Structure formats: C-alpha cells, structure tokens
C-alpha cells in the first residue's frame, strides 16, 4: 500500500497525574489516607462513653471498619476519615450510646470544607 495511514500517537500521562497500576496502593494497616471517603457524610455518630458497654456491635456492623476498639484505654474510637454517615452503628447499638449529629453542628464538619479533602 502506497499511502501511510495515520497512527494512534502516544499517550503520555505526566508523572504527577499517574494513577498507580490498577489503582492498587499499599495499605497501611489501619487507614488508607490516599482515598478518604468521609465527604459523603451528612451526619456523624457521636458516642456517650457512659452508656457504651464496649460490646463491639458497632465494630461488627460497620461496613467501612470505622469503629476501632482501643484495648489499652478501654474505649471505642471512631475513624472520621472514612465514616460515610450511614448510621448503621447508631441503629444497631443496644445501649443507645450513639446519636446522629448533623455535620453542620461541627466547626470541622466535612460539609464546611472548601476542598473535599
């Protein structure tokens, strides 16, 4: 064939914009700071330590692993960066230790952020 046909060119994604292969990233054992998902949240669970019995039902029912039991301090810790505010833990808590509080009530509420992260 005489005529040369157009090619596809090359695709060069600048290094700083490249996404890891298959979007696979190293997972720190506790939280993945590269992909924070908390800006979906409208309300957040606030706990009453007096009522909490450390039964771990919130820990088991959270779909995003946002409740951690701090054994040494004997306290449940909430993971604010990943809680999407689904309220399952509030629904499941047998001792009514959790309440849904609107993000707007907090000075650092995710709805107040200029940038999403």
């Amino acid at each position: 064939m005489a005529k040369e046909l157009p090619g596809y060119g090359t695709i060069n994604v600048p290094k700083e914009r490249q996404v890891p292969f298959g979007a696979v990233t190293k997972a720190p054992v506790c939280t993945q700071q590269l992909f924070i998902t908390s800006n979906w949240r409208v309300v957040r669970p606030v706990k009453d330590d007096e009522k909490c019995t450390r039964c771990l039902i919130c820990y088991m029912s959270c779909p995003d692993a946002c409740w951690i039991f701090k054994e040494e301090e004997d306290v449940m810790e909430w993971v604010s960066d990943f809680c999407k505010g689904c309220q399952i833990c509030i629904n499941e808590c047998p001792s009514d230790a959790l309440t849904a509080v609107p993000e707007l009530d907090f000075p650092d509420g995710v709805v107040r952020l200029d940038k999403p992260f």
Partner: protein
Amino acid sequence: MAKELIMTGCRAAAEGAKAAEVEVICSFPIRPYTAIMMELAKMVADGELNAEFIHGEGEHAQLSVVLGAAASGARAYTGSSGVGVTYAMEIYSPMAGGRYPAQMAIADRTLDPPGDFGSEHTDAMCTRDQGWLLGWADSPQEVYDNTLINYRVGEDHRVMLPQMVCQEGYFVSHIPDKVILGDQSQVKKFLPPYRPIGPLSTTKPVSHGPQIRPDQGAPMDAMRAAVFLDVPKVIEEATADFNRIFGRNYDPFVDQYKLADAEIAFFVMGAHANTCRKAVDRLRKQGVKAGMARLRWVRPWPTHQLANALGHVKAIGVVETSTSYGGAMRGGNLIHELRASLYDLDQRPLVTSFMAGLGGETIWPADFDYMAKVLTEMVKEKKTKRYVYWIGM
C-alpha cells in the same frame, strides 16, 4: 504427546482451561456455554484438574469471584452466554481497570426478548468497550488455541487485561469437530505461570478497587487506553510463538482467504467463515473474484491490518451477526469500525453490510451467492446503494 480427538467447542474450551491449569473456576448455568462447566466439573471431580470449583449465585457473582481470585494471584476462569453476559455488565469495567487477567468463555446467544437461544454475537459485542480483549473462534480447534493464546496475552505484564474467548453457540459449542490437544510440555513452553502485580496479601497489605477522585479519572482512562497501544505487539509475539510451538498457521489478526487478487470480499467473524470459504471457492469456479477476511480480534481492533488486507478490494460485504439498532448504518456493529478503518485510504473500497445469522439462523451458501450478487453490482455501478441488507427478509 499431542492427541487428536473429536469434540465440541465446549469441550475444547474446557480442555484449553485444563491445559492452562486454571486454579479457580466459577460457574452458573445458562445454555449453551453450560457444557464447558459440566466438562470442567467432571475434570475436577475425576482428579484430572486441581482447581477450586465455585458455583456462583449468578453471573454478577461469577465475575466477582474470578476478579477476587485473579486479585489474589490465581489463574481464574468463568463463562456465560446471552443474557448471562449482560447480567454481569457492572463487573467488566472494574475488572479491566483493576487489571485482573481472568478469562471468560462465551458461547454466544441472542439477548431477550423473547428468549431465543440461538447463536448471535450481540451478547459479547455489548461488552466491547469495557477494556477487555475480545475475539471469536471459527472452530473447536481455535477455541482451544485461543484459550491458551488469550491467557498468554492477557497475563503479559505489558497487558494485564481480562479476556473474552468467544465461540458461536451451537454452531461451534455443540457441533463436534477434530481438535488437536497440545502436549503439556508444549503448553508449559508457551504459557508461563501467572505472576500477579500487587496481589492481595496478608503480609504486604494493599488496597484494591478504591474510590478515586474526579481529577484522577482522566489519567486513569488515558492509562487504560495506553495499554491497548501495546497489546497488538504482544498478540503478534504470542501468535508467532503459538504457531511455532504447536505447529499452527494463524494470522495474528485477520484470517485471509483468497484475498490477494479478490475484487469482492466478505468480512466475517466466527464459524460462518467455514460456509463462507466454500462459497468463495464456488464463486471462484463461476469466475467471480471473491475472497474472505475473518476478524480474529474485535478488541484490540486491527485498524491498519484491515486496511492492508482489504484496501485493494473493490467492494466489501460485512456479514453482521450482531445488532446496532439505530446505529450509523442501521445494521450491525462491525461495519462502523471497518468503514472507519478504511477511511484514510486514497482509494476506498465500497462497503455495505448484510444482517445474517441473527437469532441463531444458519447463513446458507445461497445467502453468500446473493451477497456476492449485490457486491458485484456495486462494483459494476461503482457505488454503494444501501448501507444494509437484511438477509432472508
């Protein structure tokens, strides 16, 4: 020792998976592909194949299971037909974007309604833009061969993409034909073990399938597109190695039959090529300079290879076995991409399409005679009068 047996396309696919020593298989029944899983289940039960055989609760689950298996480093295999293929639609893009090189066998089937079970390319063609490798075989032999070639290409670290190995339902999947099964030493020489990149691991924890931000979306898409620039080279290497090791003679992209001096050509995909070759022979005896080009890969689409193979032909008839309702040519899918591939040639062939083999209908030799008549008239009149002809209507 390589052995020669008579078997269906379904059995050939299962033999291919067995030769590839797949480690995880996920099944869910839908005809006609079901027989592949029946054969594999028997192989596992008889101790011939050491694989985890999981019965999914649907096609969406099937694909999810093999995604997980591939993510953890196993060579994974699944399959489906017709509406089963479309039921799993959500998983195709994450599987390609996450770069999980599992394989899916398709024995194609029409989509509903109203529940026809005949062969048609529409099911797997629906998935063609999800980032998978995709192609049709024309015989049980090619099904076996493509199973191995696709694993080799898909698992290559320059590619790392899932593959759809398609065959026509019934025409290939259920009609026995001669198949030469390779010796396991040949398979070992051709297909290295699967080496995952960043697999799920308890010792080196990684995150798979995370949320990304909108500003990461464009580079992600560009990187996925860039992979396809490298795929053709890998296919060429793999096909050459396969031909050498197994003694076959495949063209990597376009199976060409009597094309060199052809004036009219049929552009086909899959087993209808077998009838087409005979039709070409008969037309040649009648003095019609006919030829055939059979597409082996829909993705990646071999743009330049097709322009090279078909550029000199005067009129091309695209035999479509899939539907694109309301599409540019109001017929099937292949004509759009074939016309686009030929657009930059100085002398473009005339191109029309024939809707044939839909709903599982046979494309008869007489149908090819009719198509040849239309193409010959196009050459004589030097124009394309219609974009699409519906065969038998």
